[in-house]
């Protein structure tokens, strides 16, 4: 390993010690398809989609796990490479329930979806990750159809038991990204490879449902899964990538302040993912940040001001409620002075809200009786 340069597709590129061919290519803006590679974790070389040709090497090499070397001559798009990738994709497609690809139907995921939905009269049964699946994306790009090999029967039934994550083993390509995410990124150490050969399966603690394992439902595995094998239960069927706009925001729970991407459909949040570029969390979220959003749509939300009358609340207009508050406070200030009023601000709400509240107390009522649960 040394500082140096290598040739990719005939152009010279510098690299730093320890960089892989994939990393050098990415920096140079040369796209190499990957399925199992998860940035920042140990390469597993499980999928072999990222293969490239290296002059002098007997076989194609996985670019995600091969260190760059001085003077290397790499080709990322030779016919051998392309056909190897296509074959890899064909094998993956035939290994499970990847019925989204049919030969000759076109290459746009959304159009394919609409065509299927129309032909079959409904769409809930179509893969929940349609349009957001790396396998599908590459299959369409490389012209793999899933018909080159006989399709194998699913070995394991899906796990639907827990409230958050659907594990559909029939769509699992055993790329191991979820295992890396759980063990090396979040370090929750809940899942691993289990069984052997054609029986292989991603298992939680000796093959138990997630709820009985060490899983803490952070959903990192769902975020990194390239296929429809791991899916947010709450979003399934509601979320389709072309239906949502994405909005970046900050998690409303703890003081870490994770950056989230809200997936919003018709004014409603239908899914949350972590923002990979966001500081401080770099894409990571916990169970609350990922799944704790739907309280805002609760039927129990307050929708109108309320005024207590004869011991009961009755609905009121803003003007009525605010006039009442103002009159009452004016009276108390006149009788007992401003320090007879006190207020508690909210440590969950916006900065701008707290600023306004203390401004109201200080600048309007003329009291410093403003606090919040600062110490809890």
């Amino acid at each position, binding site marked *: 390993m040394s500082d140096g340069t290598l040739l990719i597709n005939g152009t010279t590129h510098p690299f730093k010690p320890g960089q892989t061919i994939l990393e050098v290519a990415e920096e140079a803006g040369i796209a190499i398809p990957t399925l199992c590679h998860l940035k920042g974790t140990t390469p597993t070389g499980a999928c072999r989609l990222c293969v490239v040709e290296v002059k002098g090497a007997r076989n194609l090499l996985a670019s995600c796990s091969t260190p760059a070397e001085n003077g290397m001559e790499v080709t990322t798009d030779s016919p051998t490479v392309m056909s190897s990738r296509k074959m890899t994709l064909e094998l993956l497609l035939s290994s499970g329930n990847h019925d989204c690809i049919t030969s000759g139907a076109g290459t746009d995921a959304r159009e394919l979806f609409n065509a299927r939905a129309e032909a079959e009269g409904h769409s809930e049964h179509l893969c929940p990750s349609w349009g957001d699946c790396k396998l599908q994306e590459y299959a369409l790009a490389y012209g793999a159809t899933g018909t080159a090999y006989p399709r194998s029967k699913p070995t394991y039934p899906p796990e639907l038991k*827990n*409230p958050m994550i659907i594990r559909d083993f029939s769509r699992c390509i055993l790329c191991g990204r979820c295992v890396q995410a759980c063990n090396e990124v979040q370090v929750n150490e809940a899942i691993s490879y289990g069984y052997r050969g054609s029986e292989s399966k991603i298992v939680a603690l000796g093959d138990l449902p997630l709820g009985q394992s060490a899983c*803490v*439902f952070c959903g990192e595995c769902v975020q990194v899964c390239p296929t429809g094998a791991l899916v947010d239960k*709450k979003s399934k069927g509601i979320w389709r990538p072309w239906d949502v706009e994405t*909005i970046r*925001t*900050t998690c409303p*729970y*703890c*003081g*870490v*302040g*994770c950056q989230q991407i*809200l997936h919003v459909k018709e004014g409603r949040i239908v899914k949350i993912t972590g923002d990979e570029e966001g500081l401080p969390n770099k894409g*990571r*979220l*916990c*169970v*609350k940040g990922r799944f704790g959003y739907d*309280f*805002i*749509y609760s039927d129990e939300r*307050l*929708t*109108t001001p309320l*005024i*207590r009358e004869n011991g009961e609340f009755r609905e009121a207009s*803003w003007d009525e409620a*605010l006039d009442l*508050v103002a009159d009452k406070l*004016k009276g*108390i200030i006149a009788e007992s002075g401003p*320090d*007879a*009023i*006190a207020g*508690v*601000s*909210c*440590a*969950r*709400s*916006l*900065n*701008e*809200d*707290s*600023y306004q*509240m203390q*401004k*109201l107390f*200080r600048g309007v009522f*003329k009291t410093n*009786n*403003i*606090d919040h649960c*600062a*110490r*809890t």
Partner: protein
Amino acid sequence: MTNSFGEFDHAKMFFIIGSNMTEAHPVASTFLKNAVKNGAKLIVADPRRQNLVKYADLHLQLKVGSDIALLNALMHVIIEEELFDPTFVQENTEGFEALSAEVAQTSPEAMAPICGIEAEAIREAARMLASVRPAMLCYTLGITEHTCGKNNVMSVANLQMLLGNMGVECGGVNPLRGQNNVQGACDMGALPGVFHGYQSVVDPSVRQKFEAAWGVTGLSATPGLMIPQMMDGLVDKKVRAFWIFGENLANTEPDIRKVEHELSSAEFLISQDIFLNETTAFAHVVLPAAAWSENDGTFTNSERRVNRVRTASTPPGAAKPNWWIFKELAKRFGQTWPSNSAQEIWDNEIAALAPNFKGITYNRIETNGLQWPCPHADHPGTVFLHKEGQFTRGKGAFTPTTWTPPAEVADAQYPFVLSTGRRLYHYNARTQTGRCEGLDDLLGEETCDISPGDARRLGIHPEETVRVSSRRGAVEVKARVTREIPDGMIWMSFHFREGNSNWLTNPAYDPETLTAEYKACAVQVEKI
């Protein structure tokens, strides 16, 4: 936090005290675990065998409320064995002699019985801690929620200054803030003694500045009341009107019975919230507010980073942004506030009127937020404070502290120590998480976490309902028998109204900060 989360994954040594990070700050803990996997050392001081202990080189399983005894004993060893940073102490601190004199009394041998940790383990911890510089010290409410909370905080600062772990990357004193915007609420002046940006109400030039900016006269120079004093004021009628914005005090303050008595004594109670709850039940007027993601604004996280919050949905019915409600009320007092959006409030007032935020404007925080202090528009923000040992007030002052026991300790009648906190799947009074599909399925009720030894002794089986009582109240909850808990202690949270630990907790406060001692009170546990 003096330092930042971005430093976690390459820090070399952590001292975590009173912080159950994997449940209360889960994502922060992932970066810490990454560092440990890469060879960083980790010392965890906690009465419970909490999740991080699995990754720790050393677990100091101290007794609840013995933090100062432990910290002083560590400093005793560090000074005795000359493991401290003499240059840092010499150049950047004052009061070393007083500290030395105090901790000369607190040998590990003398403190061992208070902490419940063997003297040799304390010595080993001191040596390990001093062996890698810098070390990041992180704490949470295990340090602050005690009658000696302020002294606990002083103590951890003493330790970090002694080791020269201040003002450097991957060092510092790092309180992980519990609530998403508790940092921001402090920064914004929702405190009785300061305007936003920690500008003192006592300072006449500060008041003049705000009088000019707000176009008002006669700002009060007297620091106001803190929450517990406000609550007392409701009963003795010194406080006649009480405005509660967003806090469910009836579930989150210690001793629910007392709190409910206080709230019911209010002459005029205004509740501004997104749901009816145990606190709004006492209100005379309820104002419906917009929730997270229903209006624009900012939160400030524990590392002082001001992040954008954006609108995704419209508030239900007539619910309104909180800032609008306050502005409307000001109008009824004859003041027309010019700012008419969160951005205008931030850019034109918050940033303009506080030197620490001056350089932070919405256009600069479109993607990643900026960390204050950020004094001007080209300033990159501050990742860690006190660079090169520069403290706000010149030199860092050692403040020697002496251990004091919790206000209430176990006795014959109430032989267990109850400590409390948050659990992973819920948040505070569950106003929000209790209304999210699935979270109640992951954790549906409160439990009394108890050690296998105590459970056996009392004949309590896992999942069996037990009665937990204190001098203030009693609850019936299921027992969760777990090795996390040492004998003599039980642990509960305050997420559920039923079995809420605050029926039991002690409203005893730190004399200065008036933080309640949620972390220690005496209880009895009985089989029923």
